[in-house]
């Protein structure tokens, strides 16, 4: 199972620059964010902004408020621990530097995402997390499974990202700004707008794909193809929470409606219960944890549906609880994998003796996950029940879903971290297990310990992070729920006891349940296989249309291109019914007639000759005629360019023509009548369009602007050139980039053909 040589990794040096630089970076960012706690918990928010594309309302603006601070601290804090862990886990791997770079880039993208105050900046970082996650899932690129999973995650979350962009643009047009803090200050503008529903659908499409809500969940378990530290970091603690973050961030602007309430409630509840059942079924520890992550994401979505203080407090608390225990447990699974070479629950047992520290860390993290006191998980669970009973939709349905999910979670916690270590099965000797080195232990130990510390002293967390986070979502008026271990004997406590009982029962009967689920699973429809069919269909369609349109004969390409042009332009002309152009003959001078004659003669020569060189020369004559027209009508720049291009094209064609066969060897002229018809048609249509254009009054606003601005603003008198290099320099830059790419592409084709021919 392990993708790395356990023995080699033990000897390779782990204290490398590539390994430590991300750790230090994450620590520095963590420390910087910690300093924001006093200000944020006092109710302030810190904003930093730089102009980016001011003309489009895009700025690089960042906001540190309660919500982004929670996420920022989780990202950098867990990041530092995971980076330290992976410097040992992947020590000596041939591509470790690449891995460290991807991981550090991912952290920065994720941090940018949660801190961004501008919707489009947020979107850019959102897509960066998609791309870095693609690189990380596909890190083990030699295996087909990793490549498939990476592509699946990229396509699914990428599609969601596109929907999100559309949603953001709609929000920007409705609200008149892309700044989140300004949109928030506008109150219920979005909810009351006619475009609310499209916006909501688009934004939730982005959030649900990223946070793997049912039925778009299937990429997440597959993403476990990534190295374990990546799973611990991206697919439990950070990236998949981006969707949750988005929902929390948009809660003040999109939430509070019935559609929001029910969509999130149903999606969250279904995901949570479905994922818990699936988690129970897994025998691979990593897969089991992956499904419990889905459950957590579902639960968070469920609570973000509501807008009561209890529910949102529950969401914020559970967010922290989950990140702490899930990252810890993933790292533990990595240690087990590293130390024994397997992650199969059937093969593991009695590891506590060989790995005492890991066992204790795993035990504490699992107790927090299972929701036992005095750990933070218990408080989280109590709050979840209190929150579930307080929601506006169907308190008992929500509480029931949460109860079922929690009980299953308890059972999975047992499977993942109790059974491999404490089960009385002495497999440890056969597996040759050993305790992990300290850089790998720091992460699980610190994270598990934090779960216990925050559980015993919940106020540490409540005033610094949770309450400001709740205030960022609900505003300062709503009172957040209190975090405490003992809230007296109430309904949540009774539900907790029910959870323990049910969970332990499920744990004891896990084997028979698993068998039944496996039998059921064979009959169920697999979305993952459906995905393959969709992709296969897409590829088949692409292959089919390529076969139809792209025959490989240049003449056919030209024919299709011009036929399309003819139908599109001519069709538009017909549909608009506007041919009434003034065809009165203008006054023609002798020089005009000469040019027309030149163009006509060149065209006729091209049509009638059977020599390629003569045809090209004829075309050159046409081009020179066009250049003369430019000169007559006072566009010297264009004329010079036209002349030079025409000259070079003749030379290039001339060189190429030496290689080509004679024009139309006998008996292949059958296509010419049709070509002629199309050519005449195009000529007529283009002439008509030109006549119509010149018929109407010319809009001279731009011309006037450039004429007046060229000298004072850009110190140039040649307007054409000033437009090219100054006013529209960005366009020109794009164009010359295309020129270079085209030249390199053609170069590669020509050279490639040459080497192929040279081969014996």
């Amino acid at each position, binding site marked *: 199972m392990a993708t790395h040589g356990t023995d080699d990794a033990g000897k390779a040096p782990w204290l490398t620059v590539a390994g430590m630089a991300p750790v230090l970076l994450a620590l520095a960012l963590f420390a910087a964010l910690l300093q924001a706690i006093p200000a944020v918990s006092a109710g302030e928010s810190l904003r930093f902004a730089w*102009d980016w594309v*001011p003309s489009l309302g895009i700025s690089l603006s960042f906001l540190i408020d309660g919500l982004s601070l929670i996420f920022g601290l989780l990202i950098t804090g867990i990041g530092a621990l995971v980076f330290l862990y992976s410097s040992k886990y992947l020590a000596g791997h041939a591509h470790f530097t690449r891995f460290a770079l991807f991981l550090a880039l991912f952290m920065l993208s994720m941090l940018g995402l949660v801190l961004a105050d501008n919707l489009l900046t947020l979107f850019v970082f959102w897509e960066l997390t998609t791309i870095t996650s693609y690189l990380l899932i596909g890190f083990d690129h030699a295996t087909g499974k990793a490549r498939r999973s990476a592509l699946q995650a990229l396509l699914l979350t990428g599609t969601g990202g596109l929907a999100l962009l559309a949603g953001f643009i709609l929000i920007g047009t409705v609200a008149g700004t892309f700044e989140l803090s300004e949109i928030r200050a506008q109150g219920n503008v979005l909810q009351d707008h006619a475009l609310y529903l499209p916006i909501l659908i688009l934004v939730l499409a982005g959030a649900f794909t990223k946070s793997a809500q049912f039925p778009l969940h299937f990429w997440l378990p597959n993403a476990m193809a990534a190295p374990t530290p990546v799973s611990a970091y991206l697919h439990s603690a950070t990236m998949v929470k981006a969707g949750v973050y988005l929902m929390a961030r948009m809660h003040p602007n999109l939430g509070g409606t019935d559609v929001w309430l029910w969509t999130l409630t149903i999606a969250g509840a279904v995901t949570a219960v479905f994922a818990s059942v699936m988690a129970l079924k897994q025998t691979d520890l990593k897969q089991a944890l992956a499904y419990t992550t889905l459950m957590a994401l579902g639960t968070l979505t469920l609570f973000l549906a509501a807008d009561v203080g209890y529910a949102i407090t529950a969401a914020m608390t559970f967010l922290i609880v989950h990140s702490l225990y899930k990252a810890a447990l993933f790292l533990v699974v990595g240690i087990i994998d590293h130390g024994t070479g397997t992650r199969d629950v059937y093969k593991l047992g009695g590891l506590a003796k060989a790995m005492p520290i890991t066992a204790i860390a795993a035990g504490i993290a699992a107790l927090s996950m299972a929701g036992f006191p005095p750990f933070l998980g218990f408080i989280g669970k109590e709050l979840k029940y209190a929150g579930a009973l307080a929601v506006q939709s169907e308190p008992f349905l929500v509480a029931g879903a949460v109860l079922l999910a929690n009980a299953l979670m308890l059972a999975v916690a047992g499977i993942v971290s109790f059974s491999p270590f404490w089960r009385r099965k002495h497999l440890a000797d056969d597996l040759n297990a050993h305790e992990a080195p300290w850089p790998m232990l720091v992460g699980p130990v610190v994270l598990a310990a934090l779960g216990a510390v925050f559980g015993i002293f919940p106020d540490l967390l409540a005033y610094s992070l949770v309450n400001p986070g709740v205030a960022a979502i609900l505003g300062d008026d709503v009172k957040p729920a209190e975090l405490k271990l003992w809230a007296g004997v109430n309904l949540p406590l009774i539900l907790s006891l029910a959870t323990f009982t049910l969970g332990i029962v499920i744990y004891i009967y896990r084997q028979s349940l698993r068998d039944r689920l496996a039998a059921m699973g064979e009959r169920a429809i697999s979305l993952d296989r459906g995905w393959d069919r969709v992709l296969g269909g897409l590829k088949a369609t692409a292959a089919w249309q390529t076969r139809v349109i792209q025959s490989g004969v240049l003449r056919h390409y030209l024919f299709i291109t011009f036929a399309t042009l003819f139908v599109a332009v001519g069709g538009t002309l017909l549909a608009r019914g506007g041919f009434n152009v003034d065809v009165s003959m203008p006054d023609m001078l002798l020089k005009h007639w000469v040019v027309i004659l030149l163009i006509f003669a060149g065209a006729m020569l091209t049509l009638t000759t059977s020599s390629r060189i003569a045809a090209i020369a004829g075309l050159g004559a046409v081009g020179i005629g066009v250049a003369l027209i430019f000169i007559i009508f006072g566009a*010297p720049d264009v004329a010079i360019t036209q002349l030079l291009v025409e000259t070079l094209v003749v*030379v*290039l064609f001339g060189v190429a023509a030496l290689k080509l066969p004679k024009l139309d060897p006998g008996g292949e002229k059958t296509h010419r009548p049709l070509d002629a018809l199309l050519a005449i048609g195009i000529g007529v249509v283009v002439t008509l369009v030109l006549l119509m254009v010149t018929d109407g009054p010319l809009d001279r606003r731009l011309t006037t602007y450039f004429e007046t601005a060229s000298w004072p603003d850009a*110190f140039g008198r*040649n307007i054409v050139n000033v437009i090219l290099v100054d006013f529209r320099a960005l366009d020109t830059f794009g164009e010359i980039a295309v020129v270079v790419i085209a*030249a390199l592409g053609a170069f590669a084709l*020509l050279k490639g053909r040459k080497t192929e021919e040279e081969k014996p």
Partner: protein
Amino acid sequence: MNSIILLAGTRLLVALLLVFSIFMLLRGHNTPGGGFIGGLIGATGFVVYAIACGTEQARLALRVPPENVAMVGLGIALFAGVMAIFFGDAFFTGQWLFIGATEDDKGLPLSSVLVFDIGVYMVVMGSILTLTFALEEGV
């Protein structure tokens, strides 16, 4: 191609074309010309040279591979755009320096716009030569 007339003419023509191309590049801001036209003329010079003396000689005369000229040109153009950021302006805002300017005279104007145009010149010339040389060598 072994034409004495072409060979003799080429010597004059190539030098003239290259000088003329730089002249066109520099005058472009106020009178017809500019990086695009200059690059085309410069490319024509080398194409003529290649026709007369062969691509091997033309490559030697150019000293660097034409594809590198194109890519460096693109880099220079990008740099010209980025320069504006260092002066606190938006991407691709022209930056100007007037050396020896007086009340009536602007002196010698130097600008990031010129740098950009030089980039365009190199891209156009490099790309066309890349294509032409490769085509001619393929024959």
